[in-house]
């Protein structure tokens, strides 16, 4: 395979291999490897699965099996530059999470799970984000937005490029 066809960069491969000494089996590096790829590509295409499997001396089916178990990894297309989870579990639900998600979807012009046409935002519901004292909360990439009002949600959506 030529470099042009390859999806995993040398940098990604080095990062994945750095996990090898941590575990007694190569298969245990599956999740770390998927995270390495997902962090950069915002999805894990099937070709990347094949290449990860080769690195970990597994069948691609084994990696694919694990990947599909976690709804977390998208495969067909990248998620937005910001991936936001609006928590919908009980504590947030009791403090208006459903209305918040609906409001944000309307503001961003997407259905739950959808990505804006400019690729700036993927808006999804999330199950309990473990920030129940700040309900309703939204986790956008690495940033936790606490006690989010509709006005703050508007500002957040408008701030995205």
């Amino acid at each position, binding site marked *: 395979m030529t470099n042009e066809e390859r999806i995993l960069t040398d940098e990604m491969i080095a990062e994945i291999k750095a996990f090898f000494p941590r575990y007694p089996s190569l*298969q*245990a590096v599956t999740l770390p490897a998927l*995270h390495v790829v997902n962090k950069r590509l915002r999805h894990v295409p099937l070709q990347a699965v094949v290449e990860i499997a080769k690195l970990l001396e597994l069948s691609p089916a084994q990696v694919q099996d694990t990947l599909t178990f976690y709804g*977390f990894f998208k495969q067909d297309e990248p998620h937005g530059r910001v991936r936001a989870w609006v928590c919908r579990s009980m*504590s947030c639900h009791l403090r208006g999470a459903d209305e918040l998600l609906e409001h944000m979807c309307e503001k961003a012009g997407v259905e739950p799970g959808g990505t804006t046409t400019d690729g700036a935002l993927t808006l999804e519901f999330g*199950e*309990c984000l*473990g920030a129940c*004292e700040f309900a309703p909360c939204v986790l956008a*990439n690495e940033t936790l937005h606490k006690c989010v009002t509709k006005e703050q949600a508007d500002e957040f959506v408008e701030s995205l490029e």
Partner: protein
Amino acid sequence: MAEFQPVLLANIDKDDSHTLRAYESFGGYAGLKRVFGEMSANDVKELVKGSGLRGRGGAGFPTGLKWTFLPKDYQGPIYFCCNADESEPGTFNNRILMEEDPHQVIEGLIISCFATASTTAYFYMRYEYPLAWKRMQAAIDECYEAGYLGKDILGSGYSLDLYLHRGAAAYICGEETGLIESLEGKRAWPRIKPPFPAVEGAFRKPTVVNNVETAACVKQIVDRGSDWFRSIGVQPDPDNPRDPGSFGPKLYCLSGHVEKPGCYEAPLGLTVNELIENYGGGVWKGRKAKAAIPGGISMGVLTADEFDCPLDFAGPGKYGCLGLGTGAVVVVDETVPMVDFLHNSCQFFEHESCGQCTPCREGTSWALKMVNRIKAGKGRLKDLDLLLEIADNIGIIPGTTICGLADGAAWPMKNAIRKFRDEFEEYLKRTNPNGYMETDPVPILEIIGAH
């Protein structure tokens, strides 16, 4: 009894509490040094066993006893997993420890690993905690730098590696054998037990899985002694020889319809009323409470008349709930229809069932479909009995599933429908006046048919 002073949360509001420098200035790692200087692994095991510490992750299994299930004088590797996959709705106590006092957790872990002769520990953290991830990683790096982790820790001859492992947003990874499968790179399908992880766990080797708060408690027990720990909480029930008591402080999470949601430390045995009134500032907006979850949504639900329920390991069970769980109390005010409560609960478990066992996969999914239909104004009285039939037949307790996720799905269904049956019936009659008495199969199901 003098007013209880927080121990686990004593330092979280201090400047830079997450750094090694601050932690050492509070006396951190002195306990570890004393362990290496004065104690054998067995001494630590006995100390923790004697303290009566029970796991804080939800099941409440005695920690010291769990450690003694490891094979004696085992020559191969023993793995230690710290369960930081906290995902139970309403629960965030581990997040606060990891974000604000990660070294307290790490010190407890090093001591626990030393006691169990583990030399490799995996810290399995849920994906949704980016700040906790950064703080834990920084704390681990500081520990390697300072010689608290790595080879020959503090010249003791004992070596330990601690690795962070990141989950991918799946609730089931908090079940200890689901966690192990996930760690191994597979789908997080819980294993049939026995064998228990202490005999055959991660990578088919003996393994201990302990919760984050449990590790922090171990550190406090080493510092303050098992008598101190046993002086807090609830003594064993003299009428129940199998009750090991509920000792020590607990981190209670309070959220939902209260004025001041938050994580509060109190002796085990605090009542729901005390938590809401003394810590949470009462029910919000001057309203009345209708119900509360006693310890994470899996534990079921208490009516407002049951708020004298003590939050110790035996308390919620006396009120028809599953148990103490994670000690996460979620308060529901009088304006919330219980149908909405039940719907949210069913929605969660339908989404998080791992799909391995048919009763859970199908049961949670059909329960949600039925509650959806009820919410859409097409519910029948018979649906309540069908929902109860599902709830009574999925889980470890009826013996139909491998893990307890289905019991957790079932309990809010059973409690909500049995404790609030009048409200459900009134809702059905009001929203489906012409059809609530119907008992024939729902037509669409006949059209689709089976097979």
